[in-house]
């Protein structure tokens, strides 16, 4: 967004642009947070909502331990830690879990956005008293299409197909096999589930309240929220620091089943090493906002549905369930538009006549060992 637009939007949210945020917020913006956003005018205003000037000074001195910060700011150690831990619990900063217990700022825009929301939810707080911060946050992470930017964010994430859609397909890699991922995580007690922060954002932004029925996810998922899955090392973090729920085996499989039959699209960072799986459906997912703008944030899975013509009865169920208009019934038969399809499997799992069958269309190298980092950086504005 150009600066003029940003100004207007900020003014609309905070009332008036003056007084300007204190110098320390600009310092933090330039030193740390501006690198994450294209909307740099917003940064200091957002930071002012999230941190007191003293807290902001401390963030600027991070990474550091509680002891180091206490000494630097001439404060009592216990008091300092209390203050910092509150910020951690609210998702505003991060702390390591083992000695020397360093505190650090968030370094990734979407992770920061999510963390703020998760923090409020974990503390069972109403978002309305913080709504300015929430609205500024949404503004801050917004992007308008531009080619360089599109390159920077392309394929950072990847779609994992619904297990049910590939259970009869040979050659499904471990990192594409939801059942095995969940199985092994549950076995190691490294599987946690959290409430969907995207839905909270969408609901508060549109209605000014946390309406569980704001989107269809919940009815689809089942009665309760909680299908944001963290795996392995991130699971421990979300369980210990963000109040995420560590289901027992039975509960884990229930959550999995619910996610399976919903129109959620399993999305994970584009590496073979699965640390979390977002199961948002397209109507409130943070990523689909970007996709609507034309950013290809999600890399399709290696799978595509193939239509077995003789079985298709043209019921259009697949068409209804597809978030990308990638499958359409033409002359009574389903037709897949290969270029639009992300291979999520949502159409396959509900095909009553089993006319849709997944096929592998990409080699294993499609899923990189090396996380995607080429376009990791936002262009300088």
């Amino acid at each position, binding site marked *: 967004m150009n600066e003029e637009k940003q100004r207007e939007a900020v003014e609309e949210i905070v009332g008036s642009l003056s007084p300007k945020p204190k110098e320390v917020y600009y310092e933090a913006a330039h030193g740390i947070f501006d690198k994450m956003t294209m909307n740099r005018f917003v940064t200091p205003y957002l930071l002012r909502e999230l941190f007191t000037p003293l807290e902001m000074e401390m963030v600027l001195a991070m990474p550091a331990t509680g002891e180091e910060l206490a000494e630097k700011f001439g404060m009592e150690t216990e008091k300092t830690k209390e203050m910092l831990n509150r910020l951690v619990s609210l998702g505003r900063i991060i702390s390591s879990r083992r000695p020397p217990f*360093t505190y650090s700022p968030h370094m*990734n825009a979407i992770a920061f956005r999510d963390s703020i929301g998760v923090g409020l939810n974990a503390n069972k707080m109403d978002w309305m008293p913080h709504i300015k911060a929430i609205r500024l946050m949404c503004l801050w992470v917004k992007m308008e299409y531009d080619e360089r930017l599109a390159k920077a964010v392309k394929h*950072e994430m990847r779609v994992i197909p619904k297990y049910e859609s590939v259970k009869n397909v040979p050659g499904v890699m*471990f990192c594409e096999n939801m059942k095995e991922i969940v199985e092994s995580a549950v076995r190691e007690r490294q599987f946690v589930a959290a409430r969907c922060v995207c839905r909270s954002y969408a609901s508060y932004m549109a209605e000014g309240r946390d309406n569980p029925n704001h989107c269809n996810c919940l009815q689809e998922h089942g009665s309760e929220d909680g299908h944001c899955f963290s795996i392995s090392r991130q699971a421990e973090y979300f369980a210990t620091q963000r109040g995420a729920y560590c289901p027992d085996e039975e509960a884990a499989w229930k959550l999995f089943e619910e996610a399976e039959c919903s129109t959620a699209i399993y999305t994970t960072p584009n590496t073979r090493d699965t640390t979390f799986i977002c199961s948002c459906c397209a109507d409130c997912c943070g990523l689909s906002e970007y996709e609507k703008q034309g950013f290809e944030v999600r890399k399709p899975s290696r799978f595509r549905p193939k239509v077995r013509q003789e079985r298709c009865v043209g019921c259009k169920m697949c068409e209804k369930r597809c978030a990308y208009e990638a499958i359409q019934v033409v002359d009574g038969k389903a037709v897949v538009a290969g270029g639009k399809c992300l291979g999520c499997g949502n159409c396959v799992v509900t095909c009553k006549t089993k006319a849709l069958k997944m096929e592998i269309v990409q080699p294993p190298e499609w899923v990189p060992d090396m996380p995607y980092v080429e376009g990791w*950086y936002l262009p300088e504005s």
Partner: protein
Amino acid sequence: MGLFHCPVGAMTRGDEECIHCGLCSAGTAEERIRSTQVIREWLQKTEKERNKNITIFKVAICGKGGSGKSTLTALLAGALEELGYATFIVDSDSSNGGLWKKLGMDEPPKPLSQMDESGPDGEWFNQSPMISTNFVEPYVRNKGLKSLVSIGKIENPLEGDAREMGDYAKEIIRHIVPLEKEMILVDQEAGVESFGRGIEILCDTVLIPVEPSDESIELAGKIKYMAGGLGIRRVRAVLNKVEDEEQEEYLQEALSQMDIRFLGTLPNQKEIRSLNMRGHGFSPKFCHQTAGVLTQMMLDEAQMKYKR
């Protein structure tokens, strides 16, 4: 600065998962390239450890009598050879011993159960760790990248019973450590009786050849159930002796009902029968032609790389 998430999934800079690649705070292109290098090195260094719960080390091939266990073992070994993997094959079937012929070997290995462990043979046999290259002729036979040992047959029913042989096999499979790019294959006895002896529990993967017969399907279900109880991570079927698409679909559906994944199909092939009839070996090329795709699928599922 990343828009989304840390490339190694660390929660924070300086946290225990942080590999200090510096990517999250890098500002310039040079810094970014340096970070990428650090990540690449880390990935290489930790590959084994990261994949240790996914990699296939030891495979038990189980199924109904005559369903094609030995045939599958031989085809798999040959296909793996073509794909760049060595195999150490344990013939634990104490009732028939034709596997060496299928593997194209000139002689059968001398059964390990006939070895005098207190003699000189005990020395190499009891070396720790137990690796395939410790085994010496005539107890091992080699052909290409394939090695075969056999546990032994009961020649005189008064001399030993199958149970003891099973324990012997178990010791070997427990202790053997596969080398780099090597896989242990165990050609199991028919049926599920051997499951009680617990060879499978020492394996990370169970493969079941399933032929178009109700008994074979049913037994696959039993194996899957028992393997689940033992906590074996990967159970996969291979459809064998399939004559047409209808049989293939039927078997796929039946397995799917029992929640058994499959790797592919071996059609009913005259050439397999002819080779078996004459006691000829399966060449790696033939194995690759016949079972190459399903072997690749098996490796893909375990995210293991191979030569193409």
